């Protein structure tokens, strides 16, 4: 295998910033076969690969990359799918820079191997030719219920179906996919991909029931009464946090959840062809520094805002968003106001937002999170002239199902307490993803879904 000694990743074609800032099409366009082979040849095929340790689901990274380098794309995707059931999603939204790629030896001398890009390539290559449904084992006639249909749930459902279980996924919304459809925007993760992943698990025999707000229409007890022998809860961290400052109920103030749900799930960008509206003004402030803040800001721009600010109370270094998303946002013209914290939102007589009063911050000693704590600079208040505010400061656990389920032990922050295999305090009930960890990444949720599936399998095998 020839070695490509370039210190830089093979560039991935992408829409130009000045074009993409006004459309919802995917930003990154993906590798061609030549690009992929070229990039795969940068991999040193380490004897003790660090990259695998950096992957929450332990994809056999050097193996699949070797196959791409040998143009055995079929083989490559097979290797990936042994451990990762959603590679087209992960290749796009995983924070590879702090996982696999962070530990890549090539990265010590230059840029690491573009593992995420290669994973995406292999997944897209397979999608283009049509995904093969694997041979399924004989049915075990044992029913498992999965609550929620985000990455943790889809992974858990897929793994259990492959083992022969009779799996039903219950989704509250009218469309399955969880945060992959309501949260992550089209320009980062095309909805068609999520749809294909859902179709794939349906082909594995999983039944997907939408419009099922669990805890309301059915409870966990109902599920056991209906003959389900195990339940996996993957309902995510869907409760929006507000800042608790005056003016948050003015018209034009959105939680990021509402803002993104209207745009992504309800397709407000097609209004009035579709029926759900959204109000995005001329000057938008997004409060927060995570990926959701980046997604909100970039969506606001695409909805036609003239000027979009990200208002973040710490500095660039502490910002939790992925570097790539930050760079994309900046290229598109998002303005970053670091060390700035909102104090109150100002409204007009009709209740519409007309400004946001902020205060400058400076960084003091590190706090419990290890990041330097932001403290206000006395007398530095100023007013931003904005007409829309999106609050993207995080989410909490949605209590709806938890309240309706007896015997579930919770953490002090209200998340479901579960062991490393997702087992909860209640027999026959597992949980995983953001409802256990708090808002985290797609891949961590998938890892949790995977472990839970294995644990559920062991439980149901020992039960008979």
């Amino acid at each position: 295998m020839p070695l490509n000694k370039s210190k830089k990743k093979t560039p991935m074609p992408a829409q130009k910033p000045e074009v993409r800032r006004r459309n919802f099409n995917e930003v990154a366009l993906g590798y061609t076969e030549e690009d992929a082979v070229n990039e795969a040849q940068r991999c040193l095929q380490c004897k003790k690969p660090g990259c695998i340790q950096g992957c929450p689901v332990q994809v056999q990274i050097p193996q699949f990359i070797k196959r791409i380098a040998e143009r055995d794309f079929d083989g490559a995707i097979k290797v990936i799918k042994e451990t990762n059931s959603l590679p087209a999603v992960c290749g796009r939204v995983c924070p590879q820079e702090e996982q696999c790629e962070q530990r890549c030896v090539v990265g010590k001398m230059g840029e690491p191997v573009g593992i995420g890009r290669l994973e995406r390539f292999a997944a897209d290559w397979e999608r283009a030719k049509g995904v093969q449904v694997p041979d399924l084992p004989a049915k075990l006639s044992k029913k498992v219920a999965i609550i929620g249909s985000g990455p943790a749930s889809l992974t858990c459902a897929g793994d259990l179906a492959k083992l022969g279980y009779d799996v039903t996924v219950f989704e509250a919304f009218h469309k399955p996919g969880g945060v992959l459809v309501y949260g992550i925007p089209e320009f980062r993760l095309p909805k068609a991909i999520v749809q294909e992943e859902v179709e794939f698990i349906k082909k594995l025999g999983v039944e997907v029931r939408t419009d099922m707000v669990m805890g309301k229409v059915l409870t966990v007890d109902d599920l056991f009464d209906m003959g389900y022998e195990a339940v996996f809860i993957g309902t995510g961290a869907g409760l929006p946090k507000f800042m608790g400052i005056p003016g948050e109920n003015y018209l034009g103030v959105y939680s990021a959840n509402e803002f993104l749900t209207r745009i992504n799930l309800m397709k407000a960008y097609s209004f009035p062809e579709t029926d759900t509206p959204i109000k995005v003004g001329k000057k938008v402030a997004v409060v927060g520094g995570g990926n959701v803040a980046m997604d909100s800001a970039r969506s606001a721009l695409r909805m036609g805002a003239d000027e979009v600010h990200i208002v973040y109370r710490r500095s660039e270094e502490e910002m939790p968003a992925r570097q790539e998303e930050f760079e994309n946002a900046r290229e598109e013209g998002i303005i970053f106001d670091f060390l700035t914290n909102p104090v109150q939102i100002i409204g007009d007589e009709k209740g519409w937002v007309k400004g946001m009063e902020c205060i400058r911050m400076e960084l003091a000693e590190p706090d419990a999170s290890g990041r330097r704590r932001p403290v206000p600079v006395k007398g530095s208040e100023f007013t931003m002239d904005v007409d829309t505010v999106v609050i993207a400061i995080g989410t909490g656990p949605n209590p709806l199902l938890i309240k309706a389920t007896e015997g579930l032990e919770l953490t002090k922050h209200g998340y479901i307490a579960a062991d490393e295999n997702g087992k909860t305090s209640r027999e026959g009930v597992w949980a995983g993803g953001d409802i256990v960890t708090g808002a985290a990444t797609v891949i961590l949720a998938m890892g949790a879904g995977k472990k839970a599936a294995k644990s559920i399998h062991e439980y149901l095998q020992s039960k008979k």
Partner: protein
Amino acid sequence: MFKILEKRDLAPSIKLFVMDAPLVAKKARPGQFVILRIKEGGERIPLTIADYDAEKGTVTVVFQEVGKTTRELGTLKAGDFIQDFVGPLGVPVEFPHHKKVLGVGGGLGVAPLYPKLKMLHEQGVEVVSIIGAKTADMLIFEDEMKAVSDRLYVCTDDGSKGRHGFVTVVLKELLEQGEKFDEIIIIGPPILMKIGAEITRPYGIPTMVSLNPIMVDGTGMCGGCRVSVGEEIKFACVDGPAFDGHKVDFDELMKRLATYRDEEKISLERFHGSHECKLTEQIKGADSDAVK
């Protein structure tokens, strides 16, 4: 898909659907609501459950044709299907120790008031009700309310039926006459609930209202339906929709309800446009004399 089993015109622009929704019917309780979406691309709108029958597996909803979605809904007939019908959502209301309750319903608000009073009536509680509408033909659920009330007052704004005036006038009279209630439930347009709650406040009678803010998911996930109740911010979809009327900030609610007024107009005009086109085509196709 959810089938419309029965459709009734209750009043000009107010329609009733009996929906085939066994799972919703099984869990539904007074005070709860559903979210429906007519078809792909449609918006999700909350509607209060006006009645339910767990045995038959049916849920009754009542709606007024005001915006695009409710007008489109109004064009559907018995036998047609609705894409999504989600529920029951919200917190059921409970009145464990009441002996006498007053229900006040204005306009469409009579529909969500009905199941609460029906439950109270079945519990043996004395029920007094005041219902009203703009005109006699806009009045809904009169027979149903009569059946669950020990005493029923009917009002119309124009005097075409019952008392001439608003329901709040009768409410005020009853309280001034010294009649006592364990609780008063007021449901109707926000302005009616606001005025009603102000009338009951000096008497210190617990006053329940049911709010109808803009919602998307109905599961506590978007926060779009947030309302100020006392010092707290509540989500009407999961903390309500029933709240203490003496604590609700109705002015804020009314402002927030106007968020999408411009968009609602655009949507409605577009809907009328497409419907008028169809109508013109039909007319063109018909006998030209009939058009004249």
